[in-house]
């Protein structure tokens, strides 16, 4: 099922949580809404689900306008961060709930409900735990039951609100891989919210980066990581370093000298240069480069992160070097960013 969000605005008591957001979700796609808290990602998800109504704009399921439909009519599977399992029901009753509350001929007989619940329990690899209560399950198991429960109603769209947010790192990683497998096996259109960029980039077909109620960028992990289209995305996704520069005659200048980077289309004047700390080319001499004094050097996992003090303004930037690189021992390092981008000075 395709989902189209068209110019949606949402206000809570006059406070705008989403400004004019539009998004096309393809059928069968696994898409992540990524952003810091307060970016509106959960609000967008709840709007798609029908747990909230948009102040303005429309939401389409396929060609159908779903904006005014209730959550029951939209037939979406929703998975909550804190599971929201019914604590007085067994696992199998939790999963069968959505079928049990149906009316008339669409309601399968009790035996059929049980069989479907068992099948789903198999799918989420929890067979044998039918009679358990939620309180007797670990966090990871509860979230898998919650997913099975959401899938039991054969939803048009699967929506997950920070599904792994309450779990510890090890379990998160396992469930992430597992969710990907389930998605590939069942082919549900799936939207999940996360504030964890690693989760979003690793799991999703496309990532929607959000900030302050707006969509900053939509793209694959490669698009988002390699060609961020705003200072926010640069700063939010992965590591980034920024330097205040000047553009003159299509060349980038740091303080009073050119750093050997051409920017023929950039408007002259002040700008900010963004680059990835690991994407730098180290240089020996310095005619047209960025040079700085090593202020601090830290070992971070497989690399060495070096903090450089640049020029007279003592502006600090970080670059990453291989652990055994001789430059890490020096007191002065010269480099030039590999991939970089200019944004107007803030």
């Amino acid at each position: 099922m395709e989902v189209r969000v068209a110019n949606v605005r949402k206000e809570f008591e006059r406070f705008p949580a989403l400004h004019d957001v539009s998004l096309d979700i393809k059928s069968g796609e696994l898409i992540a809404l990524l952003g810091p808290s307060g970016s509106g990602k959960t609000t967008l998800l709840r709007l798609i689900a029908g747990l909230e109504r948009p102040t303005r704009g429309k939401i389409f399921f396929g060609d159908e306008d779903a904006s005014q439909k209730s959550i029951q009519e939209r037939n979406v599977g929703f998975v909550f961060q804190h599971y929201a399992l019914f604590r007085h029901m067994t696992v199998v009753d939790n999963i069968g709930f959505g079928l049990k509350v149906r009316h008339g001929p669409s309601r399968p007989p009790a035996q059929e409900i049980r069989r479907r619940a068992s099948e789903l329990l198999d799918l989420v690899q929890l067979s044998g735990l039918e009679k358990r209560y939620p309180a007797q399950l670990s966090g990871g198991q509860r979230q898998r039951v919650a997913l099975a429960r959401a899938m039991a109603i054969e939803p048009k769209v699967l929506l997950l609100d920070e599904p792994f947010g309450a779990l510890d790192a090890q379990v998160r990683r396992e469930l992430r891989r597992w969710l990907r497998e389930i998605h590939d096996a069942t082919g549900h259109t799936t939207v999940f919210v996360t504030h964890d960029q690693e989760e979003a980039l690793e799991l999703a077909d496309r990532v929607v980066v959000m900030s302050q109620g707006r969509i900053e960028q939509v793209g694959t992990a490669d698009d988002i990581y390699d060609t961020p289209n705003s200072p926010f995305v640069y700063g939010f996704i992965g590591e980034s370093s920024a330097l205040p520069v000047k553009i003159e005659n299509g060349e980038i200048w740091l303080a009073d000298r050119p750093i050997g980077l051409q920017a023929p289309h950039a408007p002259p004047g002040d700008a900010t240069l963004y680059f990835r700390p690991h994407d730098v080319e180290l240089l020996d001499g310095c005619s047209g480069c960025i040079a700085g004094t090593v202020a601090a050097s830290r070992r971070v996992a497989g690399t060495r992160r070096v903090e450089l003090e640049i020029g007279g303004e003592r502006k600090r930037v970080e670059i990453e070097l291989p652990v055994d690189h001789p430059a890490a021992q020096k007191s002065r390092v010269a480099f030039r960013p590999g991939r970089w981008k200019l944004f107007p000075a803030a």
Partner: protein
Amino acid sequence: MADPEIKSYEPYHESRSAAVTESRPAQAVLMAIAFAFLGIFLLLPLIIVFHEALAKGVGAYTQALGEPDARSAIRLTLLVAAISVPLNVVFGISAAWAIAKFEFKGKAFLTTLIDLPFSVSPVISGLVYVLLFGAQGLLGEWLKGHGIQILFAVPGIVLATVFVTFPFVARELIPLMQEQGNGDEEAALSLGANGWQTFWYVTLPNVKWGLLYGVLLCNARAMGEFGAVSVVSGHIRGLTNTMPLHVEILYNEYNAVGAFAVASLLAGLALVTLVLKTLLEMRYGAELAATRGH
């Protein structure tokens, strides 16, 4: 991760550090004061009630309870409780639902209003109904014209009792529902349940112990209420006397055995309530702990 892992929710015991623990003599004194106080003001009167009731033997006791006026008082008390407790259950659940589950104007006002019966003297609660329904009251003429008797009759007693007991269920449920939030209800709705199914299958089971606890306290108060009922009842023997009112009448007639026999029933009710309440607290406490761990 595939291993089924069972988490148990042991009640959390706070360990006491030596620094904040009083010396043994100080502890002994504090405990002695507490026990002596409870003994003199609570336990002793309770023993005296049963002692006086049985002072002239079991025969006199059962006879006092079998007397027609006493039986009528017991019947009336049960009837009043049977009407006012369900009414307050409905009211309590509605109010708690409204306050805990959604935002509206006047919410703080409603919350304060629910506490009103706790802060108003029961006599005033009764007087309000006299002013409203009495012969000189606002609706008095109209009611008289239509032949409806509220004051000095069962309807008045029920109204006064409902007024006095309405906070019990609501106050028990509001914090519980607030703590549980809307998550479970949203989940039920997203699975296609309608409002009524959500209430019946999800909300009600989640608050059942709290509800039972509130009903218990509400019932105890409904049966034991004196002040408000006294003002509206008219003290007609065999007709509008509830058990507490009957106890007073018998006592004023120097019928100690009769008075204390009926009083012993009320005291017995209090003891049963206390035991049930303790049992519920044990059960309900575990439930709450599971809720938090969930």
